[in-house]
């Protein structure tokens, strides 16, 4: 099998990128053409538009144990499909704000806008995001063992029930 499973051993973390074809994917290409060096952790998935990116892809990646997810598309107003990133902005912002309730660190998910001409900005984005994920370290997994000794009911967690639970 390919060595995907022991990524961590190489000092790398799992970072997934979802990029729109027209702006950010081209911008990442342009960064390559300009040989702008970047950390190697990121794996990019190409989509036609940020409007195609279902927040559930991001959740799936995070639940699967991705240490970071980076979404990038055209700047609002510059969408190749006119409105795709306007929809994406609402969806992704909603996801980003809901994430904390699940205990998943919202810092592990970033969405941004990088145009086809902004190769330097792409390099900067990848460097910054990778550095941030490394600072956060490997993401906790759902599969990690939970200490059974802790009382993990909601009441146990909140210690009291003045308002009658959730």
């Amino acid at each position, binding site marked *: 099998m390919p060595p995907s499973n022991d990524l961590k051993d190489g000092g790398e973390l799992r970072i997934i990128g979802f990029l729109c074809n027209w702006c950010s994917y081209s911008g990442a290409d342009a960064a390559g053409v300009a040989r702008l060096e970047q950390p190697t952790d990121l794996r990019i998935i190409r989509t036609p538009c940020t409007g195609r990116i279902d*927040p*559930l892809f991001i*959740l*799936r990646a995070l*639940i*699967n144990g991705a240490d970071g997810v980076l979404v990038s598309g055209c700047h*609002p*107003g510059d969408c190749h499909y006119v*409105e795709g990133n*306007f*929809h994406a*902005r*609402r*969806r992704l*912002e*909603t*996801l980003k*704000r*809901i994430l*904390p*309730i*699940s*205990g*998943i*660190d919202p810092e592990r998910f*970033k*969405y*941004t*806008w990088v145009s086809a001409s902004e190769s330097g900005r792409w390099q900067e984005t990848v460097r910054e995001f990778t550095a941030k994920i490394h600072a956060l370290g490997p993401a*906790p*997994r*759902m*599969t*990690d063992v*939970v*200490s059974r000794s*802790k009382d*993990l009911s*909601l009441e146990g*967690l*909140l210690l009291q029930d*003045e*308002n*009658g*639970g*959730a």
Partner: protein
Amino acid sequence: MNVLETMKKCIREALPDLDMVMGWEQGFDTLHATPLFMETAEDVDRLILGPTCVQSLAVHLPSLKGKKIGVVVKGCDSRAVVQLLSENLLNRENLVIFGFGCDGVVSLSRLKKKLGALDFIESAEKKDDRLCIEINGEQQDLPFDDICAPKCLTCSRPNAIISDHFAGPQRTPRIPAKGKTALEKFEEKSLPERFDFWKAQMQRCVRCYACRDSCPMCVCRDHCVAVSRNPHFVSQEATASENFMFQLIHVMHLAGRCVSCGECERACPMDIPLGLLRAKSTEVTSALFNQEAGLDQEAVLPLLSFNIEEETIEEHD
């Protein structure tokens, strides 16, 4: 004429033009109500209204699309109807809504925590702000606020907000008690504590889908990705991570649509506090889009629209 009789009269009058009217009847004891599907005038006699009518009957409406249906709704149920209408999942012409003002409903799981097993119920009756219940041969008299559904404590819309017939008087909305909500208290915990909490809860989840099946806004029916597994967002394995994935899918599907009826949490046989996830989602979407689900038939779902300049979203650069 009391509320129930007025309601029965309304339904009897409307029934000839309808295929069916949905309401509640007494279940196996006076503490449990069960949905009632009224097709004849005699069926109407069995109708009850009261604190045991917990189920939201709106959940059945989308699958009955095409029939002429009547439905009895509490305030919270009516919001689900409004939301379904706004999403083109119901035909208003085929729907007759019987509304009333709700005094709150009981929470069996809170009652259980107070009284233990609820096996032998002789009678249960709400008297003003107390619930009088005869259980295992003992008479109990409990403050209603201690055993009502949590949503009723902060209910701002006890009256059906949409109806063709409204029985009885309008109820006044509750003023939410001071103090932190469960969500606020939960959010004081650190991210790892929250994550561990859900991990433990999701290990308890049995993937019975009661939360989904009781949700009036869950309209995929047989096509739910959790069972069709196409698209393969989630596998059939009942592991903590897959269970959590399923719950988060549900949250995302409900974002901007959840009417906060609390049915998911009520239906959960494992008492998993799913309301926390819903409350957060509602908090987020109302803050972002200044819009609450289930109030306006003409509203466009916030996640189906956009503004070119989003005032509430900081530009991510």
